[in-house]
């Protein structure tokens, strides 16, 4: 590796990430002409770096942007960019920690809505992940008959295209408004259990009753025995196991058609 090249590249990228560079160094390393001097040329790259990352976050988090407005969203984005220069070759990977950043920087004692931006970002990231994940569109679903669904020993799992979330707000009206191009809807505080799921290449978020959420969580990505997961869900949701199993019998075909579960291989 030529040292001069590494030195030049480390200087330039360091200055781009910092957003500023010593004018004398810039003039010593970059050529200019009458139309545009070295500083102006460097500024094109420094400005482009931020614009590109902000645009990437805007594309991934449209509901959050709708909720807080362009100015506040940009403040969030600039804070994230300053704290998290991209490390991965994929720009898609860049927004992965945005919700954690918002959570970590939420104002202390900020009232019931202080956690709202992070909650919206968490849901939108889940939507982005589900959109790209391996789905069930090509999987054979003919195995699921009313009889086969509850056969002892049957193992089911969550497909990669499912994310289970427990949020402190009802965010679904906001997501719908964002998708339909409507105005911002301020979410109501309150526990909200949802699954973000893809079926027929369409991503949606489904509100779940606690026992259904608990049963899906018990299945997990690795899969579990249907009865074992039902027992775990009964225990954690406080429902009677037999009644839960009866409900599960009715709901399982629906859950399968929605893309919430698939057969564990």
């Amino acid at each position, binding site marked *: 590796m030529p040292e001069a090249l590494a030195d030049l590249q480390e200087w330039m990228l360091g200055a781009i990430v910092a957003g500023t560079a010593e004018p004398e160094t810039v003039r010593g390393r970059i050529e200019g002409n009458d139309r545009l001097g070295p500083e102006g040329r460097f500024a094109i790259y420094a400005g482009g770096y931020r614009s590109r990352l902000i645009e990437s976050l805007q594309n991934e988090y449209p509901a959050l942007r709708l909720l807080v407005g362009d100015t506040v969203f940009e403040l969030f984005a600039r804070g994230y960019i300053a704290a998290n220069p991209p490390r991965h*070759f994929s720009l898609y990977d860049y927004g992965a920690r945005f919700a954690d950043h918002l959570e970590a920087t939420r104002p202390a004692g900020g009232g019931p809505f202080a956690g709202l931006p992070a909650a919206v970002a968490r849901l939108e990231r889940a939507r982005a992940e589900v959109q790209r994940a391996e*789905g069930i569109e090509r999987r054979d679903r003919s195995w699921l008959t009313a009889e086969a669904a509850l056969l002892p020993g049957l193992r089911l799992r969550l497909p990669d295209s499912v994310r289970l979330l427990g949020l402190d707000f009802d965010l679904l009206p906001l997501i719908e408004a964002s998708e339909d191009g409507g105005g911002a809807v301020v979410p109501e505080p309150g526990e909200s259990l949802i699954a973000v799921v893809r079926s027929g290449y369409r991503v949606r978020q489904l509100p779940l009753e606690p026992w259904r959420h608990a049963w899906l969580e018990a299945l997990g990505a690795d899969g579990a025995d249907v009865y074992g997961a039902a027992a775990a869900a009964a225990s954690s949701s406080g429902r009677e196991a037999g009644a839960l199993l009866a409900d599960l019998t009715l709901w399982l075909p629906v859950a399968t058609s929605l893309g919430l579960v698939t057969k564990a291989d």
Partner: protein
Amino acid sequence: MARADPDPARPPRLGFPNLGDGVGLRDPHFAHLMRTDPADWGVDWFELLSENFLDHRGYAAHVLERVAAHRPVVMHGVSMSIGSADPLDAAYLDKLAELAERVKPVWISDHLCWTGIAGTNSHDLLPMPLTEASLAHVTSRVRQVQDRLGRPLIVENPSSYLQFAGAQMPEWEYLGRLAEDSGCGLLLDVNNVHVSAFNHGFDAAAYIEALPADRIVQVHLAGPRDCGTHLLDTHDSPVLEPVWALYALAMRRTGGVSTLLEWDSSIPPYEELLAELAKARAWRAAEPACA
């Protein structure tokens, strides 16, 4: 300046076919491509942005599968960082190879640039210092990539807004020597030549005249934005008249190579894209050598 005429002993385009006229495969056109009979797509081939499909198993992958079943596709990347002083990203190359295995592209291209250093990624195509040492470094890395992918890499000239002090050669010489020494092909983006020529004050036609024509595998067309002091490579507008003139020159020099219209921002409806692409045919018709 010595003109680099095609060597009659070498197959043109490294033996790659002239695919005809194509467009970039972009999300706003997915629905149109899925509901339209492939016979009515109106293009000969598609170029996909590799990074949009690496690790993607959703609708985009589904569309790509249909497109690749009916048209030749080419993979065009922005993240190889062939000019970085960092080691090559093995994970990236593995994913690129995996995607290539899936979609069977006719070729794989990326840019003469670096995108990051010391583990930080700018997600920009940053310019190379045009020195002998950097050329040797990039040549060696192109060879490594070609060994890993088992095929020639096609390298595109980038748009640039700055040149580093201490340049030892012009960009066209750098690219020509890179192609000769590494065996790679060239993707000549005539819009990028126009943008960089304006920004740095060189002669765009002389740039194209000086490249080894038989190494040019593909041409890119796009529209830039005029920012007053400089041109910005935005891919958000129709192709400019002087860029069409450079295209005609490139076609004359090469005898005709695969042409691709890039449009990545403010993307127009598919029909509008085709109308812009059709202008390429008209410009070629005026060039008897490649009509």
